[in-house]
């Protein structure tokens, strides 16, 4: 059940609705699930993702917090250890900077340090992504940091279907899970089946099959890769788009197998390119598919600059379909 793909006949939801539905379903199913964060209740978050939840579940389970990111992450850890399943809402991914100690030194390590006795079943939901004209402190994609940390799980959905399934899995998981939602995806529509389903962690999804080149893409970069694949098809290049869906655990085998098949790969992610997610994935593929590759594995991350405010500058900092097309053409020797 869990591995099903959506069918084109499913009803259509936005990314945002899919997340809300996942949380609502889990809150109905399990009274220990609650959500806490800044302006999550009446306001339903600044992105309006949680609108309606406080009406259904009340302010005891949909809790407006002070502007205390470290504090609410910490409360999440304590509540999780003692029998609850908190979802901690961190408005902008840039603010995970304030939660690093609680997430990395506490949440991620408690199970191990206690020799397996204590568990921390908590979810931290936050956002990523630029191009909203929000400047350097509200536009970062910092998921590489959490991905680096053993003990944490990092999910990074790219479609409404994945968002719902990954969120439900996160809430049921007994470990701390961080979910990064791209702010630019919230209005994206896609099929989401009515029934219950989960998406397991560490299982990549092939979003489009192809034979000439593998485009590994995460979050909103999946849309960029799909657009690029369409453009490439016109040029006679068949691109396969693979979405890891979780960065930790990483489904290395699917990525490697795809690259073995196509013998070329580009990795696209919206985090800063240097020491980012693209580095891990590219090196995994370059190692695992070494004897099959016809060209070096290329990486496309966000430009290594703080995100500028001015639209003319901001827009060039993130990977765009045309850039992917150009890179793919080069790798495939078509110029």
């Amino acid at each position, binding site marked *: 059940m869990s591995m099903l793909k959506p069918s084109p006949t499913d009803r259509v939801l936005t990314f945002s609705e899919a997340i809300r539905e996942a949380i609502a379903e889990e809150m109905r199913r399990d009274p220990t699930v609650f959500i806490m964060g800044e302006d999550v209740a009446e306001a339903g978050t600044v992105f309006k993702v949680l609108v309606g939840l406080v009406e259904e579940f009340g302010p005891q389970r949909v809790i407006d917090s002070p502007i205390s990111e470290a504090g609410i992450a910490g409360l999440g850890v304590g509540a999780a250890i003692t029998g609850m399943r908190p979802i901690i809402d961190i408005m902008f991914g840039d603010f995970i900077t304030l939660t690093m100690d609680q997430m990395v030194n506490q949440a991620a390590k408690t199970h191990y340090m206690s020799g397996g006795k204590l568990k921390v079943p908590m979810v931290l939901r936050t956002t990523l992504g630029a191009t909203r004209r929000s400047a350097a*402190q509200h536009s970062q994609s910092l998921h590489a940091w959490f991905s680096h940390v053993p003990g944490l799980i990092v999910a990074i959905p790219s479609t409404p279907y994945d968002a719902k399934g990954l969120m439900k899995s996160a809430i049921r998981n007994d470990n701390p899970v961080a979910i990064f939602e791209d702010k630019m995806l919230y209005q994206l529509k896609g099929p989401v089946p009515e029934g219950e389903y989960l998406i397991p962690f560490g299982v990549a999804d092939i979003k489009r099959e192809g034979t000439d080149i593998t485009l590994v893409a995460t979050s909103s970069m999946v849309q960029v890769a799909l657009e690029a694949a369409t453009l490439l098809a016109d040029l006679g290049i068949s691109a396969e788009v693979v979405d890891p869906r979780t960065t930790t655990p990483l489904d290395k085998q699917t990525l490697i197998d795809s690259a073995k098949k196509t013998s070329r790969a580009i990795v696209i992610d919206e985090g800063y390119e240097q020491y980012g997610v693209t580095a891990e994935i590219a090196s995994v593929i370059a190692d695992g598919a070494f004897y099959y590759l016809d060209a070096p594995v290329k990486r496309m991350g966000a430009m290594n600059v703080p995100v500028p405010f001015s639209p003319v500058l901001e827009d060039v900092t993130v990977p765009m379909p045309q850039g992917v097309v150009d890179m793919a053409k080069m790798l495939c020797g078509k110029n």
Partner: protein
Amino acid sequence: MTQSTEFDYNAVDREQWLHMYEQMCKIRSFEENANELYFSRKMPGLTHLYIGEEAIAVGVCEALRREDYITSTHRGHGHCVAKGASLDRMFAELLGKEAGYCRGKGGSMHIADQDTGNLGANAIVGGSAGIATGAGMSIKMRGTDQVAICFFGDGALGQGLLYETMNMAQLWKLPVIYVCENNLYNEYTHNRETAAGSLKARAEAFGIHAEEVNGQDVRAVYATMLRLVERSRQGEGPAFLLCQTYRFLGHHVGDVNREYYRSKEEETLWKTERDPLKNLAAWMIEAGLAEATIFGQIEEDVQAEVAAAVEFALNAPFPNVSEVTENVYA
């Protein structure tokens, strides 16, 4: 709302009050135009308006010298104007233009202007507490008699950083003044839901001298700040000023339907009875310091200046795309 009453407002020059009025007027007009630029889709992104809170920025900055420092917030236009920035370059920054204070790289939430001592607006709530306190440390080490002002909202009291830095400021008697703009809300949540106990006591717990003031009365803010600044210049250490205020409009320009978190009546009350501009004008007229007509004249002049500034910004060029990789490192 104590001691300040001891101050004799008549000891202040009529011209100075008029100057404060003009400054408040500039801020208001700046913000109205920013709002308009948003609704006419000429401004990228969102911005947080300071309308209603003008007396704080102006009362505080009027007590400062050009070389004193301020750190500001996401709601920072007022502080920036009051500290002396020019409106054309501010608007240019809001529009992401090369002529902006940050060459378009910062935008509304990051305007900095070191020439007037503005170390920058900050989009991290409470995020500038370290910067302001560090500036205070630097002042003390360099042996000047500057002061550093840290502006922040009531919501910033949720951030642990503020407590860490207030402790150090008091330990080391740093010339920092923490100015809390309590406009009752953290975005869309009233602070009775987010702040326990007493806001002022949070500074007093560290032994910091703290006062509370009516943030809608520029006279009170100014008079109180004069004292606090003087204390700090004399080496008596930090202070905390709690200003009671209200933002007349939304949390940001897009926050138009606000009834789910605050009532129209509440808004109307503040707008009609506690408007810092109206109140200063009324007092000056009543005290015989100015005739009613002068305020209209100031407004007209200011509006012309602001209109020219907007015009400048709209016509200014965007930065060259190659600038994107400049200024990452000094």
